[in-house]
């Protein structure tokens, strides 16, 4: 079994990371069954204490925090996943194109990317989202395009290293088309660094969505997401309630979990041995 071998190969920190990720993924996938209450169901008084009748208390309008965290995991993680997948497909495709075709295609794509990347991420997202609206797909598209830019740079750099190999030249001499060269010669050899980068980008996307939600431009209420939960409960802090810290720590925990796993993958991809 490949999966078992994969897990055996991981070191301890990576396994912890994997457990964290699987735990959140489980919550996200089975939210309606796992959560004790509905997503926007008002179940009690406002700011019910943590550890009382409700495990994580209730929020500012009396919804169960635990249930909202679980549903929030679903919205936030799924959105982040789709967005990261978008940015990777787009970024890698552009990067490979630039590396294999070179010349003006490379110049054009690289300059476009330079322009987009020169605008700070959060500001670019804020401008576009406030102009176009905040539906699920707009968010995915906007963040996807913004984060495709750094992916482009990495994909291009990796592909350029692969592109000069004799086996790519051999494929060209055989008369293979561009698509085949990108898909069969370059992609398999660029997979490891790209996969590691995927985990990292996933975190960034996740944080950006949470950040946008915190500013009120992410997913709109009553949909639960972690960033919005931090924001809407933030005034509780002033009254001594710990509630906003719970979704915040979920964000931190998932980010840490992903980074633990990714670190070990990057380590492996770089070919370093443990004894170095």
């Amino acid at each position, binding site marked *: 079994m490949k999966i078992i071998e994969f897990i055996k190969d991981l070191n301890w920190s990576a396994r912890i990371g994997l457990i964290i990720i699987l735990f959140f993924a489980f919550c996200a996938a089975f939210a309606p069954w796992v959560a004790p209450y509905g997503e926007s169901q008002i179940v009690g008084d406002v700011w019910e204490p943590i550890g009382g009748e409700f495990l994580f208390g209730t929020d500012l309008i009396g919804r169960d925090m635990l249930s909202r965290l679980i549903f929030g995991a679903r919205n936030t993680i799924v959105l982040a996943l789709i967005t990261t997948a978008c940015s990777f497909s787009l970024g890698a495709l552009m990067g490979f194109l630039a590396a294999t075709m070179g010349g003006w295609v490379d110049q054009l794509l690289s300059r476009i990317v330079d322009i987009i990347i020169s605008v700070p991420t959060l500001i670019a997202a804020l401008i576009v989202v406030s102009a176009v609206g905040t539906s699920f797909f707009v968010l995915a598209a906007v963040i996807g395009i913004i984060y495709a830019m750094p992916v482009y740079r990495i994909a291009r750099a990796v592909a350029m290293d692969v592109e000069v*190999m*004799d*086996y790519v*030249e*051999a494929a*060209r*001499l*055989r*008369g*293979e088309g561009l698509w085949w060269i990108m898909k*069969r*010669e370059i992609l*398999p*050899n660029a*997979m490891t660094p790209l996969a590691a980068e995927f985990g990292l980008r996933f975190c960034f996307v996740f944080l950006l969505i949470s950040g946008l939600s915190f500013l009120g431009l992410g997913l709109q209420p009553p949909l639960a997401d972690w960033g919005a939960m931090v924001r809407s409960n933030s005034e509780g802090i002033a009254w001594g309630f710990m509630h906003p810290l719970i979704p915040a720590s979920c964000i931190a925990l998932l980010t840490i979990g992903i980074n633990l796993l990714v670190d070990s993958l990057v380590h492996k991809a770089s070919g370093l*041995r443990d*004894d*170095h």
Partner: protein
Amino acid sequence: MTESLLEIKDILIEADIEGEWKPIVNSLSMTLKRGEVIGLIGESGAGKSTFGLCALGYTKPGCRIVSGSIKLDGQELVGQPEAELRNIRGNKVAYVAQSAAASFNPAHTLLDQFSEAPIQHGKMVASEASVRGREIFAQLDLPEPDTIGERYPHQVSGGQLQRAMTAMALGSNPDIIIFDEPTTALDVTTQIEVLSAIKEAVKSRNVAAIYITHDLAVVAQMADRIMVLRYGDLVEEGDAREMLANPKQEYTQKLLAVRSLRDNKIIDDAQNTILEIHDVTARYPGTNIDVLSNISIKLEKGKTVAVVGESGSGKSTLARVITGLLPPSKGTVSFRGEVLPASLKEKSRDNLRSIQMIYQMADVAMNPRQRIREIIGRPVEFYLGKTGAENEARVLELMKQIEIPENFIDRFPGQLSGGEKQRICIARALAAEPELIICDEVTSALDQLVAEGILDLLQNLQNELNVSYLFITHDLATVKAIADEIVVMYQGKIVEQGPKAQILEPPYEDYTELLLSSVPEMDPDWLDDLVERRKRGEAPTSETLGQR
């Protein structure tokens, strides 16, 4: 002095191979006297580098010394703390690596790097070190020894860099120098300069040396004594002259055996010309230097033309012109009587199919993420449209032709040895059923015996399939073994061309003679004789060629 300087006894070194400790040096012993040179010879994987390096008390990462003793001047090295060993390395024992280009730091000047070890070991201060550096640079025949130290590694040639590295090793007056294949990456003509510089330096200082190489002819020039290693075991040990004259073990005899010359085929009339290169001149885009000028070559069906020259002679560029990767600025390439389109994009699939290429480095010529099945099967599918079971049958048939077991079909290139990889590359070329195969230095990355196997295979395939070869190489032994016709190139021009017998027999053209005379021979006196003859002006040197 008869007292031994270095005494290695029953050393057992193991390596971590996929999680298991396996012995790679099997209880080998060696004694080295002051001023003596021992040659360690063997194929890759023989354990010769590992054994040589242990004289520094050093093992590569992933290796460990299990038992045995290493005594340097009476001091035991096994079990010494790192700090003590560091004091010895570069000080009493120095190391010269195979690839000088990879061993120098590109961000520092040669003299800075030369001075580092003596200063670190507290032997000299900076000003002394720079004086000494100039002295040694001069001794090693480096040009402009007073100022060459201010250059950066990329500003000197490969041969000079290798000598600079030897200078570095000599810098702190070591007792022993370990040379690890110092000339393997160099051209034959450059190799001579480095070899004679090293030999002179070692002799005049009376330092002991361990010379590691896979080339018996080179070790014959350098060593007093030779140890032949194979799979971590000692095959034969003895006095160099005696062993070369009278090898006892079969393996040593095989290494010594002179390659058989190919029978001269009768050259038919020009009816069968398959490839004709007519007056081709080419330069790389954005430059204004002709890498090739006025090249004309004809190749008959079923014959082999060898293109010989050192690096920079333009021989690989010629391959790029024929394949269409570099369109020529002047002249034409015709195939089967038709002029080929200059650029790759305009070529028909049939044209592409008929001319195949085999590369020097089989490791990078195959996609490491594809299985043998796909590597060989893809051209079968791409050119001949065979898929599924038909494709697999053809792949298996090809694997049989190149003498690779059928069960290798689902392996990745990384799971094959160097020779097997090159065989797969040959099969990939054959899969297209070509009429011409361009072989670009196909054997230069391989061990001698493996290389001979590959040449044999190519020969048999030619007899069987009547395919033509354009054989690009710097190795004259290969040429003697396989060519019908020879084209000698120098600085982008053809110096001489003609049937093998005509080129390889006197009277020689000057450059051809330089190349021929630079190929190391098994005779231990060959290097000294040659250097002597060149000094007297009886044999051409690179310098005399440059003046013409």
